[in-house]
């Protein structure tokens, strides 16, 4: 499902115009991104939570030529599905 299809589907469900849906979706993404960048986490009902995880810097060895490369520390957004979403995703598709 692409962004376009998502907008289409949401606009039908929430009885909004596509433009309004697009704006709201953008705003949602912005809010979530800003919250995550500030270090907070976002919880969405019936869906899950988005959090920031710190990944420490580490060195890896390329097994082919033995070169060592440093991977810098970074922050990664992670998603944790809550029970409801897990249930929904698993029960009906099976």
């Amino acid at each position: 499902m692409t962004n376009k299809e998502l907008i289409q589907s949401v606009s039908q469900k929430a009885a909004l115009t596509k433009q309004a849906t697009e704006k709201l979706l953008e705003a949602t993404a912005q809010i979530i991104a800003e919250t995550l960048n500030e270090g907070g986490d976002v919880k969405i009902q019936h869906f899950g939570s988005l959090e920031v995880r710190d990944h420490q810097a580490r060195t890896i060895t390329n097994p082919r030529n033995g070169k060592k490369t440093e991977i810098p520390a970074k922050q990664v957004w992670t998603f944790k599905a809550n029970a409801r979403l897990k249930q929904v995703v698993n029960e009906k598709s099976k």
Partner: protein
Amino acid sequence: MVSLRRALSARGRVSEKVADDFLNALTESIQEGLKADGNVTISGLGTFKLQDMPARESVNVTTGERITIEGYKKVVFTQGAARAKAAKQTEEPIDPIKKLGEQAEEIKDILSEISAISGDNSLAESSLPENSLSDSSHRTTPPQPPINGVETCRQAGLSDNGEGKEPENEPTIEPASTEQPQHDVKEEEKKENGETKKPFNPWLTGLITIGVFAMLLVIAFFVLRHSIIHWAENMRSNLEQRVNKPEQSTVVPKKTADFSAEAEKVSSTENTEQAETRTPTKPNYYNDAERKFTEWQATEIVGQDSRLAWVAKKHYGEKELWVFIYEANRDKLNAADYVLPGMELRIPKLPAELRDVNNPQTKALLERLSKKYLQVNN
């Protein structure tokens, strides 16, 4: 959820109910999308994907029993490339300067408030930018004029009332007092840029709009002039035709068209005089306006799959002359390329000049007319 809804309603300028509906619809749609093809992309955020986790064997730790954990589907999220970049940038220490800029603006506001309270409005307004700058530089150095203490107090009070960000910013900026002069210079530059840029943009847009309007006016003027000239020409030719016809009918009652009189080349003095008066009427035949034929040499009943060009070939020997048949039968023919079998077409008698296809004037006329009629129909 509650806070997200509130933030969304504030950001998107919609009621909380709409925001709530939207969020519910969004989660539902994402769920459906995941179930449908296991992949949902939200631009500006990232992608939700379904990952198949195969069944695996494990051991119950307490009993030592072997158990199988059933396979399931896991929802995974990968952040979008754009956001990943943005996150990196915000981590870099560009922030303090920006926040300082914000603070400087706040200080400006506070200063104006103070001056409003103290009563010298005019003075405060005129010397506002200088004040704010000097104060922002003074703020970090301990020896200060007495107003400054009031300011910082007020600022602290305001920041408590204001956004939740403010208290976090305070401590981060205060320790960086050694770097302060550099920041101030940057601030000044920023302000100058901002002040010069802001009036510049409306000017440019205004100029562009004025230019576009002028262009449109000029174009409209030319189009109008062209159409008026065209119309006037048509009217003149029509008038000339009308004026000439009665004159001919009186002078040469049998021959209605002036070309026949012209072709005779009468030798008598009277006729030559008349011919002279008539010569300017001759180009009427080469006008783009439709000719009016009064004499007919035959009528043709159109056969199956016939064309005007074929009829012209049959009667005149030249298929290019179809345009005149078309003009003579405009009452029946809607389109030059739409001839129905069984139609009765009148074939007009053509003057010698018009029948002569090799005459350059006629040739040009035929080309123009055929182009015109075919274009109209297309």
